[in-house]
Structure formats: C-alpha cells, structure tokens
C-alpha cells in the first residue's frame, strides 16, 4: 500500500470523522473516485477509526453494566400481565414493611412482637381471601390486573386501622385473591387458560407505576412449585404461597445500593430479585455469613 502525506492523512481523518465542509467533502470524494489507492486507504481508515470508537463505547457500556441501578420495577409490562392471566393465578399474600415479616403455621399462637401481631392479621386476612376468592369465581384477568392495588389498600388499612377495617375491605373486594395450593397450580393454570381476555387500555394505563410480576420455580425434595411475587410501591406481594409452606420469613437487608429482599422458607434462604423480569429458578442463598447477617 502506498504511503500518504501528512496532509492527505489529515484529510482522510477529517473525512471519516465528518468534519469536512460540504465543498471539501465533494472535492475529496471526487479524488477518491479517481484514485484506487486513496479509496483503499479511506476504507482502511474508516474501519480502523470505527473500531477505535467501538471499543471505547464497549468499554463505557460494560462499565455502566456494573453500576448498581435502582431496579425497583415501576411498570408492569402487558406481556407479564397476559402471562399471568394465562396462568390463571389467584393469590396475593403478604407484604413487607420495614424490617421483616414472619408468619406462623399456627394462626392462634400468640405473637411475640408488635410487628408479628400485624402480620398475623395479614395471615388471617389471607385465609379470608381464599374463601372470598373461591366464592367469587374470579377470572384470572381480574386477579392480575385489579388485585395488587386492592391488596395494597387492605394491607395499609390493616396497619393503620386494624383488622376490622381490613376485613371490610376484603368483603367489598370479592375479587381479592387468595392462596392456591402450589402443587395444584399447573392444573389450575390449564383450566383457566382460556379465560385470559384482552386487557383494556385503561387497565394498561392503570398498571403503569405498578410493580413487575415475577414468577419463580422452586423445588424441595420431591415437591415442586411456583412462587410468584411482585414489588410495587416499595412493598412486596407474595403470590401462591401455600399454608403448607408456612412459615416463611421475609428479610430486608439495607445495603449501600438499596434494599435487598430475602425469603426464608423451611430454613432455606432465597434472594427475591427486584430486577427479575423473566421466570427462572429461585436463587438459593448459601453464603453462611449472609444468612447469619439476615438472621440478626
């Protein structure tokens, strides 16, 4: 290949970088058209400069990928919504508040702290919802679209004003969800598949700023099931928790990058991933020091 003068090389640079004036550009292109060597050199430089730039872009992008971002989902995608409707899921359970929430197998057992008292109310409430939902023949769409906000209201009311008001809310919101036996979920999903209707634009709009649904499979021994949860308004809604799975404990861990949430089910810990948008197996936490930390 031919060697070019400093001037020509500079001109090639300017041409490739798009800093030539319109007149200069036309002149240069005329020159390229009549000089094969120059044309080759321009192509070579285009390639090289593009790569110099690409690798910088890649470097910056891969650095940004390591930056922790606030990923509390603020939007519920319609894909998920429809997916949910199709599964025919009913069930909304607990939510998280400040520290951690603990549920007990025996709802009659006295709570040991104020926090636990509140959570026991939720537990009862959920039992009520099961009945309400069974009686109301809830369509899957209603569950997916309407319930999170209802449950949120119920939960908040429960905290602020006690069980009685919460119960009223439940009775007026018959479409409130309940627990589904995890082991039966698939069967139920099939039976309600066809009921998933189109979601209206209005409902879609209502779902903005709502949490994203996350569905996780779990397996313990011979038992398998699906745990569904949703983060919305900084609260956690559990779906599809069976009474059989109780007690479960949700832990909140304050970290430098924001809060992390973990669930303990039968002495096993799982990370509740707020960034998750696809269905994957539940990630079990095995780091002993993290578990120790959570138990504190």
């Amino acid at each position: 290949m031919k060697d070019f003068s400093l001037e020509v090389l500079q001109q090639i640079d300017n041409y490739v970088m798009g800093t030539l004036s319109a007149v200069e550009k036309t002149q240069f292109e005329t020159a390229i058209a009549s000089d094969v060597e120059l044309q080759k050199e321009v192509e070579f430089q285009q390639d090289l400069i593009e790569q110099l730039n690409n690798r910088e872009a890649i470097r910056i992008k891969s650095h940004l990928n390591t930056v922790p971002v606030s990923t509390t989902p603020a939007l519920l995608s319609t894909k998920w919504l429809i997916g949910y409707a199709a599964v025919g899921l009913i069930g909304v359970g607990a939510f998280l508040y400040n520290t951690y929430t603990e549920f007990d197998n025996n709802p009659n057992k006295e709570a040991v702290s104020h926090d636990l008292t509140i959570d026991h109310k939720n537990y009862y409430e959920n039992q009520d919802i099961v009945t309400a939902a069974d009686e109301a023949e809830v369509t899957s769409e209603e569950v997916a679209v309407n319930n999170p906000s209802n449950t949120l209201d119920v939960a908040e009311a429960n905290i602020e004003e006690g069980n009685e008001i919460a119960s009223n809310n439940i009775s007026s919101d018959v479409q409130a969800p309940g627990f589904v036996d995890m082991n039966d979920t698939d069967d139920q999903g099939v039976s309600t598949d066809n009921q998933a209707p189109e979601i209206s634009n209005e409902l879609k709009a209502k779902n903005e700023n709502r949490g994203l649904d996350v569905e996780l499979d779990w397996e313990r021994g011979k038992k398998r099931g699906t745990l569904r949860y949703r983060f919305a308004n900084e609260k956690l809604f559990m779906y599809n928790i069976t009474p059989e799975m109780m007690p479960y404990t949700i832990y909140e861990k304050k970290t430098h990058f924001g809060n992390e949430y973990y669930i303990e089910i039968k002495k096993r810990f799982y990370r509740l991933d707020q960034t998750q948008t696809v269905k994957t197996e539940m990630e079990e936490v095995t780091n002993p020091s993290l578990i120790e930390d959570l138990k504190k």
Partner: protein
Amino acid sequence: MSDEKILEMIDKGDELALEVLYKKYYRMMVNLIIRNNGTEEDAKDIFQDALVVFWQKASSKELVLTSKISTYLYSVCQNLWRKELVRKKRMSSEETEQIAHPEFDRNERIRLLNECIDSLGETCQKVLRYYYFDKLSMNEIAKRMGFSNSDTAKTKKYKCKKDLDKKVKSIYAKSDFFD
C-alpha cells in the same frame, strides 16, 4: 447533581458523570422502552448507547443543550429505540444465511484490530481515544496529557496513528482481509 455540574465533569473527562446519569434516569428509560415493546435488557443497551452519544457530543463541545440533560437523553433513547425496532423488523424478514460468513470475517478482523490497539502504549491509546472518540481539540489533548502545547499533541497523535496503521497493515498483509 445539577446539569451544569455534570457537564463540568464531562469537560474534565470524568466518567463518573455517566454513572450519575445512568443511575438517575435508569427507571425513566426502562419505562420508556418497556412501554414500547422492549425489555429491560433492551432498555439498558439503548440507554447506554444514548449515554455514549451524549458523552461524545458533550466532550467535543458539539452539543449545545437547549433543554435539560434528561430531556435530551430521553429523545436520544426514543430515536435509538425506533431505529432498533426498524432494524429488528428488517432482520426478521431477511435471510440470515447470507451474512453468516462475512460476519465471521468481521469478528476476526475486529479481534485483530483490537490486538493492535492493545499493543500500543498507554499514552498512544489515550491520545487516539481523545482525538477520535472524544473528539477533543489538540489544545484540550495537550492539557489533559500534560503536553507543553497543541503542536506536541498533534505530533504525538500523528506518530501514534502511524504506528497503529503500520501494525494493522502488517497483520492484514499476512492474512487475506485486505487485498
């Protein structure tokens, strides 16, 4: 952090500015992309690309902001995503077989180019980056690199580039990429 402060940081070549913007507007852009049939992964990719564009335009002083940075980034994301949707649509309607072979050549070429760039000294890599990617003036490059003046920067850039050209061309000569 104010927009002025962000621009000041970019002016100094402080990439922390990008981190700040990325964190601050992450949800905004994710919502934008998800609302328009994308995923969070798409959103990350598009928003990062938008930040790269913003960085280049701001550091080269090519950008005259008439709006808030967030508004600018939002519209860049919108445009990039629109293009991406068109590209995806076109890709799905095209035969993919034809591009398989050139794609391989291209990847190999990129690998070789990267090797050559990596083999340059750190100073050369920086000077070339400042010149081609950040599109800094020779004065600015001299300032950042601690050279005595813009002529030194110009000479250095020329030497580094010549060195790189030589390395790449000799590798190309050995293979049949460049005939």
